[in-house]
């Protein structure tokens, strides 16, 4: 697709692939919206522990959130380097973005493992089910983004990225920033607001 005709005629003047990406991200909003809705509906409904207050480590996840935010900065730099036809800049900023994303995933793996050791599982309670499903699908999105970034870095190293094909980098950037924004919502709701929830708000049967 990188070889597609760049100056093809479109009615709106917007590129096909860019429009496709925007509409897809709209669709993905509803996907995460539904997962977040599930979490919110089941907030405080778990019948047994562990409850968020027992295991959520806000400072630790603040660090990984900061790392993910910095990856968006690297992504912006990668696009700027592409527009400037700076081949070394393209490759190194794309790799930096992927690397920061990988650190975030590393934190998530550590966190999932620690939570599991403290007794939080998919089947244990509703908090575990909705937490792992939501953050797990977010992590899958980040992982997909990392693979995409690495593929783009390979293309960059081959000299196939530059100001003429900057859309290729822009698209992965759109996706990456979107996934980043979704994490900000998740971090706010699951950690900053929901992270201190104790047992059920209403006792079972009450």
């Amino acid at each position, binding site marked *: 697709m990188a070889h597609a005709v760049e100056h093809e005629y479109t009615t709106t003047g917007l590129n096909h692939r860019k429009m496709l990406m925007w*509409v897809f991200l*709209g669709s993905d909003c509803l996907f995460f919206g539904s997962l977040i809705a*599930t979490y919110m509906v089941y907030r405080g409904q778990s019948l047994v522990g562990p409850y968020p207050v027992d295991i959520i480590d806000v400072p630790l996840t603040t660090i990984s959130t900061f790392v993910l935010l910095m990856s968006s900065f690297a992504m912006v730099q990668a696009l700027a380097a592409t527009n400037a036809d700076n081949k070394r800049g393209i490759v190194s900023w794309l790799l930096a973005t992927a690397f920061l994303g990988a650190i975030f995933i590393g934190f998530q793996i550590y966190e999932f493992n620690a939570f599991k050791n403290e007794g939080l599982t998919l*089947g244990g309670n509703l908090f575990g089910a909705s937490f792992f*499903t939501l953050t797990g699908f977010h992590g899958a999105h980040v992982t997909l983004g990392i693979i995409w970034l690495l593929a783009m870095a390979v293309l960059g190293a081959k000299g196939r990225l530059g100001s003429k094909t900057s859309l290729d980098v822009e698209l992965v950037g759109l996706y990456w920033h979107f996934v980043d924004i979704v994490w900000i919502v998740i971090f706010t709701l699951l950690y900053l607001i929901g992270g201190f929830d104790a047992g059920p708000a209403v006792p079972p049967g009450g």
Partner: protein
Amino acid sequence: MASITSVIPRPTSYAGIWGWITTVDHKRIGVLYGLTAFVFLLIAGLEAGVIRMQLASADNDFISAGRFNQMFTMHATTMVFMVIMPLSVSFFNIVIPLAIGARDVAFPRLNALSFWIFLFGGILMHMSFIVDQVPDAGWFSYANLTEKPFSVNRGLDFWAISLLVMGTSSVAGALNFIVTILNLRAPGMSMMRMPVFVWMTLITSILLVLAFPVITVGLIELVMDRNFGTHFFIPAEGGDPVLWQHLFWVFGHPEVYILILPPMGIVSEILPTFSRKPLFGYPFIVFSGIVIGIMGWAVWSHHMFTVGLGPVANSVFTITTMLIAVPTGVKIFNWIGTLWRGSIEFTTAMMFALGFVALFIVGGLSGVSHAVSPSDFQQQDTYYIVAHIHYVLFGGSMFGIFAGVYYWFPKITGKMLDETLGKINFWLIFIGMNLTFFPMHFLGLNGMPRRIYTYSAEFGWENLNQLASAGYVVLFIGMLVFMYNMWQTRNSRRVSHDPWDAPGVEWTISSPPPPYNFAEIPQILGRDHYWIVKENAEAAGTRIMEPEALVDPSSIHMPSPSYWPIFTAVGVALIGGGLLSHYAISFVGGVIVIMGVIGWGNEPAAAPSDHH
């Protein structure tokens, strides 16, 4: 990575079976969608036959209760996801690029991928019959009936995973059509000059893109409950079955408009053509469609009036549901306004379009009667609802689709369906449909519940049920006539490019259209483009008898056929199939998808010209 592309040489031939398997031509993909959906229509029709046979007499034991559950579940699931939706998509594919003056869709290979994933998803769903673990919890599969303790075999896994697979196909297809319609309109085709069918396709595609992620989450949670030990919908563990209902109907109600808006668009093309006057109140029809698309998100709980959401929620959703009847009514009045003082020509397509309007009014009126929540308490889960949905989905959607088949068949094949057979077909379907479903209104109000596999003679429901079953036989014969009509066209003579003297851009080119559609991208003159062109010619003292001239195909650079769509789709299907059998198969599927994406990315959309 380039080596992967060179292992499999790019297909270059358009001929034979491989030409179809590797095709990226929107017209061929449309035909594939249509034929596949028609096969599923026959399967679902036979399932309906089994249901009607079982209910034809009281205390019948033609099939067991369990088998009966499988029949109504698969009938509805197939009809919604594998018949009406793909038949609409078939029309999107065949008509949209032609109607907006484009040479293909924006992403031809993605279009092929959508079809193959749909086909494999449908096959996956029907594999459940081979292993005899058929889904049996109804098309909306309410929790917690769908949980392991109540549904021990893998039927519901087949249901959920096949729908997830087909969902990716629907979203990919819808993304494609949104971009195509916004971005590939010919010069002069402003948004308010687009044919109504194109508008309805755009709105439907936006609904699809936004609604499917919601059901995707619901299905994922269901699969996790059944396979990975979560308790999303299990009340004993604190889960809430009503959450499933919300997720299902937040998707499910926009889905209703996904099923009906495209046929509304088809009818809005056919009524003006055969009334020989422009569509009455075009902007009102367009804006009503947009309003329906927006308000469709605010009515989902009218499917849940008896769940116990409380008087406030029920009142709010009663009001929003009554309100959404307004734009629908606006459309109906505009269609009638189109007919008013027109010189009406009763072709088969026109008769089906008129049948659509009439039967959709009946379905709409019964719909208003259960929009009122107190009245709905009497109707919930009775045959009255079955009557309603068949009036809107058979009398509505299917009639619109039949109308579209008769209207566009000459464009896509160059042959005309026989009009006499067509009229026999229409009357059989029309009478059969009313005979089958009209008695169900009375059965429902007399208290016959949905989804019961038999009933006692004492209830007095037997006569009306026999009438409904007799109606099925009439419908069945009607379908046979339709199939024969399709079959006999192989001998019929070729027709001109514009047999209906129609206004649409698609009628300016030859029938069937050449692979490149338009030798030169047309300049669109107005809403009824071809009528304006023909009138201008007549004013100048000439008549247009010929389609746009054909040119040497190699002079127009078209997207080349590709193996990657079907290759990638196999991977997607294996991921789904593996979740149902062995996870190793899913892993293989994942590897195939990754290879497919790499191969796809390295293959230019159109082969270099020297290949020709």
